[in-house]
């Protein structure tokens, strides 16, 4: 078999975090009652006129600047025409000819090292409504709440070669956009959606192969699997001397394969033309400079500040700042309880473990920082030990419990009653006469065994160092 290389470019749609829609003053809130955030403009009634939300332009410029793009100062909107009921106007306002941002890049890091991924362009668009297909037999239902929510589409150059690079690119993109505050980038709620353009070619060739496009990717893991699966499919076709057809395919994560979407031959004929309802934009250098001046603290600055002001190691700082939500959680918790290193440990070890186990995104964390702060306080005060604390933390993570109340209700406080502990340990020593003998013969290891037995008997509610002291005391009368 020949050696192949996979060539990947991404189109990432990001919903902007404005309060109102792009061309009307309806709310962009997620999860509202169906068709409750609608008006004559966003449901496309005749006779209405769109007025552009200034914040959309500012957010898009902020994103462009952070991704090292040049800003197209004379810029306009175009109509992309197609009939589909999620789009009540029968066209989507987009930017084909003069996208707002062009020629940028971001730097990613994988095990293979650092690499620059080019950004071809970023343009502004409006989102479409949501179709519900399975609700009833004879038709589909439409909720237009999402219709007219502002989007930016970030189009990369075909610079990626592996799933690892694609994930690194998406993670970096997500982090930058979240820090800028231009989007919450929640994949589960569809505020970040990636389309993958993928082709394969013989290693060493500088000609691009025929590409396919996969839509509807809703998690990083699915994206990685889709890239593996689709590369394999295309390589198998080429190996069998068959051609790859340029088409849109849908990745089916359950079947672990991509499926051709029935697409009409004319589907690409969108007949773009300048939107006559939207006057062009002329973006002044002052406006760009103003936005540049307002860019918030990005990751690199945070990493430095965390080491300087909180005294945590560079490693901790880089992990925590990798996700905006974790950085916020860290800062808020430290604000309450001090103990920066302790907070950092809980985030990096236990919190990250639970996120992995539950396959959750950090953005979905819903517990209050004050509860983590209280937990750390309980350990500091010697009210609970670390084993119990881990158990309580799981409940904080899952149910946002107040650890003080939880410990109280479940009777998890450490037993610090010397007399009680002493009687338990005496009983254990009596039940294990061999251990006493071993100890007298100089086998110190037996202490560890006895501590373990005691902790078991106490259901973890004892301080191991206190237990150890008592055991020594009893064994050396």
């Amino acid at each position, binding site marked *: 078999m020949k050696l192949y290389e996979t060539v990947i470019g991404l189109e990432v749609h990001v919903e902007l975090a*404005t309060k109102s829609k792009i061309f009307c003053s309806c709310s962009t809130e997620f999860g509202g009652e169906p068709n409750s*955030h609608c008006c004559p403009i966003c449901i496309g009634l005749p006779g209405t006129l769109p007025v552009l939300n*200034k*914040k*959309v332009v500012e957010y898009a410029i902020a994103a462009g600047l952070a991704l090292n793009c040049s800003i197209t100062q004379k810029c306009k909107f175009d109509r992309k025409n197609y009939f589909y009921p999620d789009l009540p106007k029968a066209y989507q306002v987009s930017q084909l000819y003069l996208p707002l941002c062009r020629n940028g890049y971001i730097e990613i890091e994988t095990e293979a090292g650092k690499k620059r991924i080019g950004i071809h362009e970023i343009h502004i668009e409006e989102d479409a409504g949501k179709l519900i297909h399975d*609700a*009833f037999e004879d038709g*589909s239902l439409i909720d237009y709440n999402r219709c007219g929510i502002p989007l930016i589409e970030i189009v990369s150059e075909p610079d990626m070669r592996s799933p690892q690079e694609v994930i690194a690119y998406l993670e970096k993109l997500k982090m930058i956009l979240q820090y800028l505050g231009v989007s919450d980038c929640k994949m589960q709620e569809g505020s970040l959606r990636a389309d993958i353009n993928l082709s394969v070619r013989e290693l060493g060739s500088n000609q691009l192969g025929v590409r396919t496009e996969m839509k509807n990717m809703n998690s990083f893991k699915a994206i990685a699997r889709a890239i593996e699966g689709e590369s394999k499919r295309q390589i198998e076709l080429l190996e069998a001397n068959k051609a790859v057809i340029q088409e849109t395919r849908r990745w089916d994560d359950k079947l672990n394969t991509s499926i051709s979407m029935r697409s009409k031959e004319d589907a690409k004929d969108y007949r773009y033309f300048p939107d006559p309802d939207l*006057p062009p934009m*002329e973006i002044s250098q002052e406006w760009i400079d103003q936005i540049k001046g307002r860019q918030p603290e990005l990751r690199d600055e945070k990493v430095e500040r965390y080491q300087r002001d909180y005294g945590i190691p560079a490693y901790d700082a880089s992990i925590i700042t990798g996700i905006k939500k974790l950085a916020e959680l860290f800062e808020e918790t430290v604000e309450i309880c001090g103990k920066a290193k302790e907070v950092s440990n809980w985030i990096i070890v236990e919190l990250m473990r639970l996120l992995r186990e539950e396959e959750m995104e950090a953005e979905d964390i819903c517990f209050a920082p004050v509860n983590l702060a209280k937990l750390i306080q309980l350990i500091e005060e010697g009210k609970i030990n670390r084993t119990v604390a881990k158990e309580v933390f799981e409940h904080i993570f899952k149910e946002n419990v107040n650890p003080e109340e939880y410990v109280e209700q479940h009777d998890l406080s450490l037993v610090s009653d010397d007399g009680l502990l002493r009687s338990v340990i005496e009983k254990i020593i009596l039940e294990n006469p061999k251990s006493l003998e071993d100890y007298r013969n100089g086998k110190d290891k037996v202490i560890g065994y006895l501590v373990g037995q005691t902790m078991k008997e106490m259901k973890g509610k004892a301080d191991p160092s206190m237990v150890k002291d008592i055991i020594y005391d009893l064994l050396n009368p």
Partner: protein
Amino acid sequence: MEITEEIIHKVAELSKLRLTDKEKDKLLESFHGFLNYVQTMNDLDTKDVEPMTHVLPLKNVFREDRVCQETDRESVLKNAPEKKDRYFAVPKTVE
């Protein structure tokens, strides 16, 4: 560009229009006329002319990012040809 019946057919299909033969003939004629006009413009030297993107002398028309004036659902759904529950209803559409 030669306008053929095929092109008329394709444009009609993309626009979801059903045309009679008589209408097609008429459109064929007006397409020719229109494209001839465009050809005249193509023949002109427009090297130093900035493309016009909008007919009115307007630019930078913005609104502030404020939520107001949502329409109640009853009114939103009032003109829907079909509705079901709280939704617009359309014939089954699968991409």
